């Protein structure tokens, strides 16, 4: 099973639809979305506000359920999983990076990086070693014992990325990861993620309208009105 990028398909959505019924008029956020993502891809999902980027990312990440359609991740049909199975699935397969960083404010940078590994019940030695290694790789070793409030936005987002990475996920889903960063920090972060993608083979999927991210992406999926308009694979 190969995609247009000739990689093994790890995420496949079929006829995904999502309708929100929060107001009197139903809102169709996604419609008939068929998407295949190959292993190790560095994909950006782009589109204007309200095009359904975040909804699609949430559905791929198992945070939200589609109204219709199926979604398979690594051979598992996650639309059939119940709430606790989904939490467990996310814990072991998916890393999240959020626009607002969302670090745990009462934990230090190192403790934040260790947090998901702890939920995965990794050994203390392994957590310690991996957290320090990753902090070193992103140049934050000397900030290991510092709480998020004492870090800059860029530094916090770097911690958020290595927190997602530390748990050795199959995919990292990043929702507007650079939206709150200045150019230098954004470029730095993107380089770091591109390097991890290359070296560790982790699949990255971004939802973004930041041109800097789009420029670095090797595949750009454009959503409009909840449907895929373009799917461009770059060399």
């Amino acid at each position: 099973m190969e995609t247009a990028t000739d990689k093994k398909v790890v995420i496949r959505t079929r006829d995904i639809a999502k309708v929100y019924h929060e107001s009197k008029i139903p809102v169709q956020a996604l419609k008939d979305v068929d998407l295949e993502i190959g292993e190790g891809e560095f994909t950006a999902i782009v589109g204007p506000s309200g095009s359904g980027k975040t909804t699609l990312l949430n559905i791929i990440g198992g945070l939200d359920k589609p109204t219709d359609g199926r979604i398979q991740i690594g051979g598992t049909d996650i639309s059939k999983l119940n709430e606790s199975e989904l939490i467990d699935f996310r814990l072991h397969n998916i890393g999240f990076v959020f626009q607002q960083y969302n670090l745990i404010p009462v934990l230090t940078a190192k403790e934040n990086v260790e947090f998901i590994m702890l939920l995965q019940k990794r050994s203390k030695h392994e957590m310690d070693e991996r957290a320090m290694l990753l902090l070193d790789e992103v140049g934050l070793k000397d900030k290991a014992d510092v709480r998020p409030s004492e870090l800059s936005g860029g530094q916090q987002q770097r911690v958020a990325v290595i927190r997602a990475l530390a748990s050795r996920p199959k995919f990292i889903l990043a929702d507007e990861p650079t939206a709150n960063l200045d150019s230098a920090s954004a470029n730095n972060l993107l380089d770091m993620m591109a390097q991890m993608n290359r070296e560790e083979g982790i699949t990255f999927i971004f939802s973004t309208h930041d041109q800097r991210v789009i420029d670095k992406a090797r595949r750009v999926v454009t959503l409009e009105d909840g449907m895929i308009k373009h799917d461009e694979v770059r060399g």
Partner: protein
Amino acid sequence: MKMLITIAWRNIWRSPGRSFVVIGSIVVGIWALIFMLGFMNGFMISYINGAIQHEISHIQIHHPQFKDDYQIDLILPNQKAILEDIQDDERIRAFSARSLTNGMIASPRKAQGVRIYGILPEMEKRVTHHDSLVSEGTYFASDLKNPIVIGKDLGEELKVKIRGKVVLTFQDEKHNLVSGAFRVAGFLDTTSPMINKSTAYILKDDLNRIAGLGSGVHEIALFLENPETEEVVMLKLQSNYPKVLVESWRSIAPELELFLSMTDSFLWVLILIIMIALIFGIINTMLMSVLERFRELGMLMAVGMNRVRVFAMIVLETIFLSLVGGPLGILIGWLTMKWLGKSGMDLSNYSEGLREFGYSSILYPFIETSTYWTVALVVVFTALAGALYPAYKAIKLNPTEALHTV
């Protein structure tokens, strides 16, 4: 679990002001609970001890039918043997054998009904300590012939003074009315309205002589070394002397027992009120804390923290608050009890009213050690109960919605 504990502990110090408000309310709640329990205990003990020490004693022995109508001819059977028996019993600190009848007391100004006790003062004062409660005059220590000691209020009612003359009228053993003139030797000021208003004490010899009772008595009152031996002593006496009626203070004065159980119920109501107030305080604060961290909780659930852990984290935060506030409240409560238990609470401003109900004007609040444990458990339980709704609210959040909360 260790990380959960770390996060929960650090979380409560994110808003130190708010945490201190909760801790403060827990401390005040516990202190109020301990204080009220101690105060009620002191109140209850003062009332019951007053009644036992100055009026009814621990155990009384009568002729089985005597108390039906206080018939003067129903004297106590086996009196001599019983007295010999209890004299040798080390569990009995003091006892008093009394003649007893109802009659009239008359002064030149007024007459009224009265209960008349014929006593042996030396014996009696070791049981009822009335010698220490004489407000005016003496406790049968004067050279007066036919001395009588009456309640202070009764004296005022009759408008008699020390050495004043009163006449007692009652039935003799053949149910004829007989009278005797007595001179007031002293006035008693006790915590018992019954003694203060309608009781007269004369010498047993005087009562028995006028009533023609010989050496008979109607009542033996026993004061025990240790109140806990009450049942054993009663059982022994009742089995040795089946023809007499042996009663404890509980059956002699059932209102005391009722008072005890009422106080108990009142205390539970009080505990419940304080607990409810505390629960709402905790719910309010923890709910605020949960709502403030909606996005963070959403993130925790998004990255794989299951609902059980989120629930446990919120409950742990509440328990930590109560673990800081609980011991502090108990310590302050304990110190208050220590201090008030020694110095007492002077309620003399209200003593007139209190005496009407048989209370002493100085109360000594106290609390048994086991009660502190009960209070500690109540606090932990309250904290747990208060944590449930905020924790439920936390696990019910939708991670996707929570992540987009500003």
